[in-house]
């Protein structure tokens, strides 16, 4: 008999003469169950591959399991190798650095946040403060009237998204993209003014005793209205022959304000300045300079919003480095209301990231006490900023 034929198949009895190690034999002898045929299996002649089906399947499962685990492990390793640096973005050798401008010197901050509340409407754009100190907020498809503490006093539904709002005695004016509507204080619509021609995009309103001024970003002009809706004139239009460059607006952020003294104030973002016009349209003076530093207007096109303090000073809003600052009546930097550190999410949003540039940046309004209300269009928060000198009293 060939030697190979004499080898045991595992379920044969051990043979002391076939070369099986003594230790193994003794183990088999100690545990005779191991030499029995497992249930459900059978011996196949004297073949050397006589596995039981259970053992075979078990072995296959084990192999597959190990392979799968190995695959997952190697996959993970490759994934880690390939993407290990994905989340680590701190080593960008080409990083655009404006970090040094994102933190405001505390000595320059002249206001403190007294309170903050969430805008009741989505996509807030601009706001105004009425004589009753209530906030009129334009957003979504409505005007929200908010009490100074943040509770909603009224909501007026609109047919289209409003871009801006201005408040006068017992009425308020809503600027839509291409026309203006007049509403009574109770929310009833009183008038719809004529749709503007050209490429209108109304983004700012201000009202004086007998006139209303609308900043039309699309046509790059401020429109002077009588309160019955008739157009009385256009201010700031480009005039090549007269050497008037006009308003430079890379994005639709023209704003207009007046104290009702025959002078209107308009931001000219592309020229980084605030311009003062007579109601007849004459450019009286301008101030402002481009700079990422705190005293200037940063980026390509700022300021994007204006508000007037009762004492003659100006409040300006910027995007990119979202910050709100105060300039004196001569246009000299006075103090910071809130710096970029107050609007982190707004800064991250970035101007080029949205389908609607009017939905980024900030807007500001001022109440009769000189408190500044800042609207963060990205987060929808309204920050109520009070001057530091009287912050304790306001709180």
């Amino acid at each position, binding site marked *: 008999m060939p030697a190979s034929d004499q080898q045991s198949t595992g379920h044969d009895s051990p043979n002391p003469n076939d070369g099986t190690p003594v230790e193994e034999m003794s183990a088999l002898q100690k545990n005779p169950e191991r030499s029995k045929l497992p249930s459900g299996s059978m011996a196949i002649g004297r073949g050397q591959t006589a596995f039981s089906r259970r053992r075979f399947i078990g072995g296959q499962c084990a192999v597959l399991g190990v392979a799968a685990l190995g695959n997952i492990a190697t996959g993970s390793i490759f994934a880690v190798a390939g993407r290990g640096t994905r989340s680590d973005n701190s080593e960008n050798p080409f990083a655009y650095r404006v970090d040094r401008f994102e933190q405001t010197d505390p000595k320059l901050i002249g206001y403190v946040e007294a309170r903050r509340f969430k805008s009741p409407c989505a996509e807030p754009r601009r706001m105004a403060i009425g004589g009753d100190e209530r906030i009129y907020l334009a957003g979504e498809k409505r005007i929200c009237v908010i009490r100074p503490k943040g509770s909603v006093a009224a909501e007026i539904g609109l047919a289209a998204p409003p871009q801006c709002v201005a408040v006068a005695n017992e009425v308020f004016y809503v600027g839509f993209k291409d026309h203006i509507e007049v509403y009574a204080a109770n929310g009833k619509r009183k008038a719809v003014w004529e749709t503007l021609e050209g490429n209108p995009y109304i983004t700012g309103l201000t009202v004086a005793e007998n006139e209303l001024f609308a900043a039309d970003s699309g046509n790059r002009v401020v429109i002077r209205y009588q309160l019955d809706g008739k157009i009385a004139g256009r201010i700031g239009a480009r005039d090549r022959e007269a050497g008037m460059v006009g308003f430079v607006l890379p994005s639709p952020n023209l704003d207009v304000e007046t104290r009702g003294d025959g002078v209107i104030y308009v931001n000219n973002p592309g020229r980084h300045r605030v311009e003062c016009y007579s109601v007849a349209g004459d450019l009286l003076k301008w101030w402002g300079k481009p700079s990422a530093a705190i005293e200037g207007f940063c980026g390509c096109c700022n300021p994007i919003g204006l508000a007037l303090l009762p004492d003659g000073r100006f409040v300006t809003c910027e995007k990119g480095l979202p910050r709100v600052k105060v300039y004196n009546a001569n246009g000299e930097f006075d103090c910071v209301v809130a710096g970029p550190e107050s609007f982190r999410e707004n800064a991250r949003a970035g101007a*080029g990231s949205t389908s609607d540039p009017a939905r980024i940046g900030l807007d500001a309004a001022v109440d009769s006490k000189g408190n500044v209300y800042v609207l963060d269009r990205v987060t929808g928060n309204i920050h109520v900023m009070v001057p530091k000198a009287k912050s304790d009293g306001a709180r």
Partner: protein
Amino acid sequence: MAEQENRSAPVTRRDFLRQGSRVAALTGLGGVAGLLASKLKAETLVWQIDPAKCLRCGRCATECVLKPSAVKCVHAFALCGYCELCTGYFVPEPNELNTAAENQLCPVSAIKRRWIEDPYYEYTIDETLCIGCGKCVEGCHRFGNGSLFLQVRHNLCLNCNECSIARACPGDAFRRVPVSQPYLLKTSYSHG
């Protein structure tokens, strides 16, 4: 009774192996067919950057197998403000608004500035110089309209099976697009 006996009859090794072979063969065929199908699909697609997802991380410049990278800055002129102070062109605090090297943001001076009329300037990209770092894109995106953005230029791209930039992209901005529409251009203020 006979049926019960059949059910309890053990499977022979031969039957088991036969069935196993069939399953293995079918699985193999399916795998080959899938592989062929995916290969066929890959041939009609090319890599491109989704501008809406791009984080301007700089890896397009450092990870591409080509030096300089096949990724270049492109300009959507319809979105551009033609700003005098372009934040994609100038460093954040330039000394002067002129073309002096120290005022330029681009590390390789790949952006050309041309006066159009007061106060408007046109900015164009010299793709032979551009390394695809995205620094200008971040500047434009941060302050401006986002008219500058990055795209894989297919006259340069090797269309690697596994794009090395895509593997490193932290924003998962790389995706396969049909070769018939190989660019994801910006046509409005929104990306893509």
